[in-house]
């Protein structure tokens, strides 16, 4: 990866980013394939459940619902109609280069400043379309999804993972957030799509800020004061 004209910092950044991108691509390919075709394998994409004093992982938020763990989520997905995701945009970033303590890395050097490619926590963002119900004709919504992935400490990960043979649980989902972002056109009533365009349009978007009682009120209006709404 190195280059004579690069500083060591740039060289490391390039190396970490390249691995993170490999992870993001291999992971999303495998995950969305499983979502469509191998739903019974979904739980194997998640990190082991850990309940600590201030948080619980994996943290799974999907379409405004919180799932207790990967198995609960998997059973939910297994109850869904046909879905087919198409990734339209993908990006990733390294969040924490030293997420996995050096001592816990299988086959690592034990040095806290080494093996960062295999110890890092990675955020992945996806936007795409999700076809529902029928392969060609079903409604197609737009969605956005964020994953935070962490290394699988029970697995020996190669120094520069290439994923030539595809995803094999090298990184696991720690945090996930899925949202539908647009209704499929076929799901909208007659003329309703047009009405929404006018409503979300240019003229009125900035009026009313502050006029309804300040920021807290706005958050209240958005339902934000009602914390931790779980499953209905």
């Amino acid at each position: 990866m190195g280059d004579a004209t690069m500083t060591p910092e740039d060289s490391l950044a390039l190396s970490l980013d390249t691995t993170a991108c490999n992870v993001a691509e291999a992971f999303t390919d495998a995950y969305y394939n499983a979502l469509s075709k191998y739903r019974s394998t979904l739980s194997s994409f998640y990190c082991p459940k850990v309940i600590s004093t201030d948080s619980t992982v994996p943290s799974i938020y999907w379409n405004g619902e919180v799932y207790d763990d990967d198995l609960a989520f998997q059973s939910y997905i297994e109850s869904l109609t046909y879905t087919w995701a198409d990734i339209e945009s993908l990006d990733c970033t390294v969040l924490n280069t030293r997420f996995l303590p050096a001592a816990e890395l299988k086959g690592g050097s034990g040095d806290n400043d080494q093996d960062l490619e295999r110890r890092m926590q990675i955020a992945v963002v996806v936007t795409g379309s999700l076809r529902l119900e029928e392969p060609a004709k079903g409604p197609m919504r737009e969605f956005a999804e964020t994953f935070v992935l962490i290394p699988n400490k029970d697995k020996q990960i190669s120094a520069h993972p290439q994923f030539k043979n595809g995803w094999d649980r090298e990184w696991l989902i720690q945090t996930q957030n899925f949202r539908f972002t647009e209704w499929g056109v076929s799901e909208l009533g007659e003329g309703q799509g047009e009405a929404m365009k006018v409503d979300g349009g240019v003229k009125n978007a900035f009026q009313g800020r502050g006029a309804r009682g300040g920021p807290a009120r706005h958050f209240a209006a958005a339902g934000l004061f009602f914390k931790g709404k779980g499953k209905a």
Partner: protein
Amino acid sequence: MPPTGPSSRIARGGGIQKQRARRDRDGDLVMGMDPVRKGPARPQRGRAGTGAPNARPQTNGSGSGSQNNVDVTVTGWSDASEIEKLTQFLERHAAKRSTRPRGGPNGTMIKRSRVTGHTLTLGVRPEDTPAFRKINGFSFQSAHGPEKLTITTPHLSASRRSTSPHDSAATTSESDDTLALLQAFLSRRYDPDLKLLNLSQIADDEEMGRLGMFASADTTSKFFPALMVAACRLMKTAEERRAHVTSITLANNNLPNLDNVTSLAQTFPAIQNLDLSGNAFASTKNLRNWKNKFRSLQHLIVSGNPFEVAEPGWEKEIISWYPRLRVLNAVEVRTDADIARIDGPKHTPVPSHQNIWQDEGAIAQNFLLDFYDGFDKNREAVILKYYDNESTFSMNINTGAKGGAGSQHHRVGWDDQLPLSRNLRKLNHPKARVARKYRGPERIRQAWSVLPPTRHPAFDTNKYSMDCQLQPGVPDPTGQHTGGVTGLLVTIHGEYEEHRTAKGRNEVVSRAFDRTFVLGPGGPSGVRVVSDMFSLRAAGGTPAWIPQGNTAAAPQPAIVPVAQPAVVAVAGPVDVNSLTPEQQQLVAVVQRETKMITQYCIDCLAASAWDLNKAAAMFNQLKDTLTADAFIAM
């Protein structure tokens, strides 16, 4: 080899070799007829690529001496008086296909011959059997016309069994004998009450041991496929096997992997209970041949295998392979309700309009309010307040969103923003990718200077979808906590307006966005942006978090407030500013009386044809069904 039958042997020469190899892989019965290990002692001459299995050097030297002739049987001829002519015919054609030099010290290929009924039995050297195999199916020109010959070459076990008294019986029935023994074995091991096939500790079975089933790796690998063939003879249809065998145990067989037994999944795909305990599986990898097989499996026992200790967390992978697995090693892993959900009718998820906001101390809330105000008005202040040397920013543009409004989106050029896009689906080169990852205030400032001025709408119910969840393991700038501290993952979706001046324009356009912030403690405000990832799409679709009438009727009403579908279906969401002054007054009255948020007041009035009394009646009727977010928080 009776199971494949003579009719499948019409191919000649290399063809039959290939055919046999394929049957082997399918796990069909070729027990004791391994052409690979018992191939010729010398490399095959010519025929390269057709007789691939024979090209492999012989690994087993025993039994190849001239004293150890093996029997080749020939049937299909009719007239015993032509035996001499027939023998010459066979000698001639086999010799042409022999791998060793003609003549020589070993002379003819057929060492002896005898006739039993309509079977001619030839004694040949083991290394010559491939040559005879190749002329199987040849036509012999007898005085009575052409006669198609069936030539059966010996079994591996033949030499071992040559001492047994029934050796004089026709060798063609030898596989039948084996199958009969296997069928007897299966019958002994079958419990009709439990519908259990007990295949545990097979190697300890006296009968099987006496037959030499486990004398070598080679015969062992053939045993199980043969056993499955025997099972298929006892229970001919898949339906019978499903009905009669619901449980199988393979316990205590010292299996290191599934290579020898993998055909079980084809023969008994519908079993509900499987016991693999007490074997030698060192890793779940050794079980992967059966991943996603046994779709009805409810109960699996894998205790007493090394991977239980060697691979903590192995349960998760195994559970994922079998969607209907309820009990794993006596632990319940799925409830009846879970299974019912899998097997029940499928439903289409309805986009939720609820936000989930796990944000003690309103950290993320205050951040977002401050951030978007600053991002629109004074980006420099935002950078100084929230971004430090380790903060990263990147954006990606989804230029071809097919979902949602699809082709009806407002297609506006992306202008100078496009070169910032780090869409990994479009951008492949590692250096180009890393160049579009902006780290630290200076580079983020550069990137943001390319983004045109924006205006984000107020935080109103209909404008955004937002979630906030705890995010453990974000970097700790103080370095005190190895492995990181708990931060927040904030995701927000919506539309904003852009003042577009590119290409000589001067217009306001809408953009749809999705943005993910990871926030951690630190920085001058106590909150720092660890990562800021920004996705852009064309605007013009209908935000999914706004309920739609026709889909709200779908069978998932629980997450949509009862009052809303009917109301929205009639009116559609209406902005307060598009109302007449009279209507706005009515909205104010309803809001004062009900404390509902503005949109709900409008919806309620619209559904009541703007009649205050009807609206009041509707509210009183529905108020108990409204969720808390229908009301203004006090």
